């Protein structure tokens, strides 16, 4: 880690404090970005370990390793930890590191609040994880925690689950407010909105999504808490409430949430593809508008998760067509990325490999999403492994490959050293093979009718499940290689120049590598 501190600083500010307290008390956006990224990686391994339990149990039909209740806790916690602990904090980490540098700001707008938004997270997840060891176990109702499973039939630890969701929500909202305040108020003179890198744009829009829907999530868990502890009946039909209402409120949060996890990845990929194609991004303006349209549409399609609850036909049709409409702005983006690569002087260093895989595999996930959007067909796919295949295709080679692409791309800027290119490529190919092996067969088991969230299955699904498990183990263990590559890069290696990527654009590459502890204390000139 100390490698980050080396290199001369161009201003007269003091460097970071020494020792552990530096990390506890820091208000420096780069330190906090680093904290977020390490925390996210730790959660990635934790959530991955739970995926290992799931895949080990599903390696063969029959009950072998864990009891069904524990299996349900694993699927629930895997989802919660990956969504709220791994993917979201990783993007906040990237934003902390890069947004101030990209807009020419000295730091985030509210550095002290920034410290708070990070340090809430370890406590939230410590509390959430501790429920696994409590009587009755941890949350076992799926990451979507549908009532009444999460109210009437929930384990006693659910109150702690609710508290931890509140803490995660507060952390995300504070982070989002900070990012918006930074982007809107701290841009260097001349950095107009339409000159901002797409990563900043996508994060600005994501931050608005967070502020719009995280409070709704807080609302829905508060209603749960009131149903559990204070005898209200928001979701209990006996008292005049309605369990379907839970699903409406949850998915009003839940659908925008999936874009919260993908829009920043769009931004990362939009930085990397032009750099390695050595061409400017095709259709910058349309990219901005497409992102904004996706964000807007995300608020009016939520019930496509609920086609089987017994909606009237007009509702089914509306949510079906509205959902399909999202394919239009998303298609614009994919078209722009491909056109950027077209006739470019392409090279395939590790960040580019991840970015290209992102475009291809995310599109596959988008297509299965279109299939799921077709209401009558969804009656077959609903709650099967086809859904699991779909959202893992948009989240693993989507969100996670986007994060990894960004880490490789900016690692030289952070550490001052080049990572090991050969090992990076090995990491990419093993991840690519592993994740496809794990998730592609799930399309078939799902179409054949294997339900999700079950510890045992019919014999006919045995072969595909075994392949999935092998792929999952390959993907999981490969991530230890990623850890090794990153640590190796921090420890040293080939010195990175200020701009190690020939085609890279943006203010961050004007700074020396590693980026000094304080940057842009005097705003840069933006042409």
């Amino acid at each position: 880690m100390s490698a980050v501190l080396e290199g001369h600083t161009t201003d007269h500010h003091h460097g970071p404090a020494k020792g552990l307290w530096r990390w506890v008390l820091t208000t420096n956006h780069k330190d906090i970005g680093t904290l977020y990224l390490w925390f996210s990686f730790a959660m990635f391994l934790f959530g991955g370990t739970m995926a290992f339990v799931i895949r080990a149990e599903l390696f063969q039909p029959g009950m072998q390793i864990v009891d069904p209740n524990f299996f349900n806790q694993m699927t629930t916690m895997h989802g919660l930890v990956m969504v709220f602990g791994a993917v979201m904090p990783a993007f906040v980490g990237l934003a902390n590191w890069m947004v101030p540098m990209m807009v020419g700001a000295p730091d985030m707008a509210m550095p002290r609040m920034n410290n708070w938004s990070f340090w809430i997270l370890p406590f939230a997840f410590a509390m959430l994880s501790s429920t696994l060891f409590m009587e009755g176990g941890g949350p076992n109702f799926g990451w979507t925690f549908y009532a009444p499973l999460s109210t009437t039939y929930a384990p006693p630890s659910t109150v702690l689950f609710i508290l931890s969701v509140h803490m995660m929500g507060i952390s995300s909202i504070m982070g989002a407010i900070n990012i918006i305040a930074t982007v809107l108020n701290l841009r260097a003179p001349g950095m107009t909105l339409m000159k901002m890198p797409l990563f900043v744009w996508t994060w600005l829009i994501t931050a608005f999504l967070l502020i719009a829907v995280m409070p709704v999530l807080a609302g829905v868990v508060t209603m749960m808490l009131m149903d559990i502890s204070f005898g209200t009946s928001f979701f209990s039909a006996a008292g005049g409430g309605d369990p379907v209402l839970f699903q409406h409120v949850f998915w009003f949060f839940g659908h925008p949430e999936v874009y919260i996890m993908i829009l920043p990845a769009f931004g990362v990929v939009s930085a990397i593809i032009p750099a390695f194609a050595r061409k400017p991004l095709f259709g910058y303006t349309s990219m901005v508008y497409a992102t904004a349209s996706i964000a807007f549409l995300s608020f009016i399609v939520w019930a496509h998760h609920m086609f089987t609850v017994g909606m009237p036909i007009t509702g089914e049709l509306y949510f079906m067509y509205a959902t399909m409409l999202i394919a239009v702005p998303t298609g614009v983006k994919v078209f722009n990325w491909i056109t950027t690569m077209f006739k470019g002087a392409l090279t395939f260093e590790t960040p580019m490999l991840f970015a290209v895989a992102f475009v291809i595999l995310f599109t596959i996930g988008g297509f299965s999403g279109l299939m799921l959007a077709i209401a009558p067909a969804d009656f077959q796919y609903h709650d099967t492994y086809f859904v699991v295949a779909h959202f893992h295709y948009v989240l693993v080679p989507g969100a996670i490959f986007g994060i990894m692409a960004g880490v490789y791309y900016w690692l030289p800027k952070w550490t001052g050293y080049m990572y090991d290119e050969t090992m990076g490529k090995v990491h990419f190919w093993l991840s690519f093979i592993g994740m496809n092996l794990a998730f592609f067969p799930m399309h078939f088991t799902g179409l054949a009718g294997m339900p999700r969230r079950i510890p045992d299955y019919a014999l006919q699904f045995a072969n595909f499940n075994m392949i999935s498990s092998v792929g999952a183990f390959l993907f999981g263990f490969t991530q230890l290689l990623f850890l090794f590559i990153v640590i190796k890069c921090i420890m040293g290696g080939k010195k990175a120049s200020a701009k190690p990527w020939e085609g890279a654009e943006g203010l961050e590459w004007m700074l020396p590598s590693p980026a000094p502890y304080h940057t842009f204390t005097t705003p840069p000139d933006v042409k």
Partner: protein
Amino acid sequence: MAMDSSVKKTTLKLVLLTLTMFGFGFAMVPLYDVFCEVTGINGKTNNTPYQYQTEKVTIDKSRTVTIQFVTNNNDKMGWDFYPKTTELKVHPGQLESVVFFAHNPSEQAMVAQAIPSITPFDAADYLHKTECFCFNQQRLTSGEKVDMPMRFVIDQALPKHIKKLTLSYTLFDVTPSHSN
């Protein structure tokens, strides 16, 4: 570092937005109920008695509608609960009466609440109950049996395409000690 005023202003607006959206989450509850009631989606019927005025109502003898009665027990609810008539042919406008039977076979007194639902959903607005055991909670002592009346009228304005409708009741155990 002192926060400059533009940052303060932005933050204030965003905090307000956050609070508004938290409120909106709760506002979805009444909005959802209003939406369901107005559109009749969800088969929700009115749970207050309908005022039937004989002199204003004409009975549409030219039309016959079949109404079926279905009962379910929720989860571990142990009562016997069934309609004494399972199917009835009625003329719109005519006041009809049926009886549901309930028996508490358990060792303790229990309180139950019946929740109605109608299919098809677009018929929900046209079934008016002048009297129903579902308007109130039902308390039965151990072993007690009861005949519970339900009086209703089907509106003459019932859409022409609806020839058969199903009224279902789900019985919930709401005995105070099981208040989870």
